[in-house]
């Protein structure tokens, strides 16, 4: 039963990602982006990682999506005349190389028949993430506050009209 869901959601995620790339209208591609993020969240649910799944929904499907929608609305790109990317040769090369690499890696890393390891009881709950976050990886936790500080300072410095 899990395998069915797994293939369903991963296909959904990849499909939505392709939708993002190929759709002309920026707002519709934003919706596809949200679709792929929600599909990823479901994949996390399959792995019983509830906390990560909800973070994925909250931060990506919620906050980042709203940011993208605002940006799209602020830029107000006319849907039809998005400038066509004049890549020509490099696009063909890129697609070819990407396809080869994909096939090669897929062949090597195809999930073997073990399937999903049964997870222990209460594997995905918050405590199993919270304790290491504040003990082993406390330093990483403090570094993220620096990154967020720079993010806010940068946003204010660059975005505010009259700083």
């Amino acid at each position, binding site marked *: *039963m899990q395998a069915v869901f797994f293939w369903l959601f991963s296909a959904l995620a990849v499909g939505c990602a392709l939708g993002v790339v190929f759709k002309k*209208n920026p*707002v*519709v591609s934003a*919706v596809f982006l*949200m679709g792929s993020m929600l599909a990823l969240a479901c994949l996390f649910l399959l792995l019983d990682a*509830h*906390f990560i799944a*909800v*973070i994925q*929904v*909250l931060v990506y*499907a*919620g*906050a980042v*999506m*709203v940011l993208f*929608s*605002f940006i799209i*609305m602020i830029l107000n790109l006319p849907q039809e005349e998005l400038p066509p990317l004049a890549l020509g040769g490099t696009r063909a090369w890129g697609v070819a190389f990407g396809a080869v690499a994909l096939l090669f890696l897929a062949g090597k890393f195809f999930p073997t028949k073990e399937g999903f390891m049964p997870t222990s009881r*209460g594997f995905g*709950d*918050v405590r199993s993430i919270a304790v290491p976050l504040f003990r082993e990886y406390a330093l990483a936790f403090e570094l993220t506050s620096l990154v967020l500080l720079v993010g806010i300072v940068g946003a204010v410095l660059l975005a505010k009209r009259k700083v």
Partner: protein
Amino acid sequence: MEIFLQEGLVLLKAALWAVALSLVMALVAGFLTYLERKVAGHMQARLGPNRVGPYGLLQFVADGVKLFLKEDLIPSDADAPLFRFGPYLVFVGSFAVFAVLPFGERIVATDLNIGLFYVLAITSIETVGLLMAGWASNNKWALLGAMRSAAQSISYEIPVGVSFLIPIVLAGSMSLQGIIHAQAGGFGLLGWNVFHNPFSLAAFFVGCTAMVAEINRTPFDLPEAESELVAGYNTEYSGMRFAFFFLAEYANIFVISMIAAAIFLGGWQLPSPFKDILPFGLVGSFVLLAKAAVLVFIVLWLRWTLPRVRVDQLMEVCWKYLTPMALVCLMGTAVWMWAFPGRIFFGLFGTA
């Protein structure tokens, strides 16, 4: 074979719960529309609906039928797929929170161990739905209203998130049932999170204000400020799609009252000994629904007394008053937990 039976059972139970919840939501949302008009009536020295059914109780059924029969327009130069998708997202967003609401000690659809966090995540999806609806209807008023309502609900999500933290800190777990279980001390009343310490009392008010603002209700109902932006993001909607926004708004009122009652007012804890007279802790669920009803009445009461706040005042309240206050309450609770481990405020004097 046994595995399939077990899985089948789970699926069946889940399907039953889903159907039950959809009924509960439709009923609650509808009844709230009636309740709001009745309360408004009596507050404004008039009667409110009393024609359809006894005391107008079937008014919302009549509204529902009317909405089924009304024409569902899609403006010509609107962005049709998005125009249709927006209301779905808003409806599903407000519907999904029902899965986590604890209606009783053992009556809950899914007791996720990340209950409260899940609620915060789902409300942020609704915002994207609003934005899409506003953008797709290709109308100046709708766009301005959608942007404003999105800006409002995302900025109020910060104080809501931080004030959700206080009960989690006190209970040490995020699941709503866990939080309610942790409020059991002090004769069932003094153990409530609201009375746990002065900071959590302040957090109750900060949290409720932020939650009211999050679902765009007065005094923060700016986006659909009739007097300014005509009808905000649902200017171009009519028929059933307009009903989705309508249902979502009233379902949200019920949801925030249930959550506030569950995490701050002790959920189905009740201060009297005869707790288990009825089976399945039904007494508890009645108590919880009573608390939620009180909060719902307060939210409705707000709508019919307070005027509306202006946009910049709205943002200022959020970023300059609610967020700092919520952070102070959080830190205060943390220090309280460290200073008096596990003791509630009244426990300092008495025995509890």
